[in-house]
């Protein structure tokens, strides 16, 4: 699978709809401190099914909804959509027929959540399983967060084994 595009609206500092078109190869993200680079990574993990707000630097999942700025009011919903190509035909037999898969996650400030696969409502479980099938779900060695590279050498030997287990 390859990420083709990500659409972010109302998620953290991405207020209006932002579309990121990905190509194969290497994509570098740059900009000053606090401009939103790591927030893009949070959006990717969130649309892949991250359940723990603390893994997204928040205290509650509501923290990922745009909370307002000097000039803008807070939003009532965060939405992230990821479109990826599906050349190997992973996923369920129904999904197999599609060359592209679109995953959408929405969170409303009242706590309601919506999940969609190819624009069809589904459960969070379906999204998490899809990503496990594509081999991305085991993210311990495919996403290295800011400041976390040092943890590998500092962690206890027992905690380190999960890296091997996820590649086994």
């Amino acid at each position, binding site marked *: 699978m390859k990420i083709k595009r990500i659409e972010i609206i109302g998620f953290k500092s991405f207020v209006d709809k932002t579309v990121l078109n990905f190509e194969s190869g290497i*994509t570098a993200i740059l900009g000053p401190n606090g401009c939103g680079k790591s927030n893009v990574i949070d959006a990717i993990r969130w649309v892949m099914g991250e359940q723990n707000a603390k893994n997204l630097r928040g205290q509650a999942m509501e923290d990922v909804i745009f909370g307002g700025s000097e000039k803008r009011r807070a939003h009532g919903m965060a939405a992230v959509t990821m479109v990826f190509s599906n050349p190997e035909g992973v996923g369920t037999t129904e999904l197999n027929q599609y060359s592209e898969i679109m995953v959408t996650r929405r969170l409303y400030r009242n706590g309601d959540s919506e999940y969609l696969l190819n624009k069809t409502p589904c459960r969070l479980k379906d999204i998490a399983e899809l990503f496990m099938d*594509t081999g991305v779900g085991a993210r311990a060695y495919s996403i290295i967060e800011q400041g976390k590279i040092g943890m590998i050498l500092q962690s206890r030997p027992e905690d380190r084994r999960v890296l091997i287990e996820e590649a086994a």
Partner: protein
Amino acid sequence: TRKRFREAFDQINEQFKQVFPRLFVGGEAELRLTDEADLLESGIDIIAQPPGKKLQNVGLLSGGEKALTAVALIFAIFLIKPSPFCILDEVDAPLDDANIGRFNEMVKEMSGESQFVIITHNTRTMEIADTLFGVTMEEPGVSSLVAVRLDDLSS
């Protein structure tokens, strides 16, 4: 799955033994099981010796050496079982220019097979990118994004 763990461990270890001297231009490293008898519970020790230095406990390594050793392990796992994409958020921050250069070389090679998304403040790392996303906050608190497709510029 004792067997699967053993196989994965051995393959990753062999790869790690090659990636480390490549990133460090020499030296040796390996992984060791803390308990060979108990494959389901055993922890994993990292043994690392930069070139020309004596083998000491890995805690004495410098900030940059620790980061590069961790990168060597991540890349070794990646070479054995590539994920469709790999996201690295400022992992090059503690590295000096020479190490960043070798880090970039390896990312370039592995990007043939997997998509890499790299967040960096370093201009050398930007040079290996195929696509650049520039993120700014002209309006405070509101991110805006500009995409630059680099091979359009250079070709």
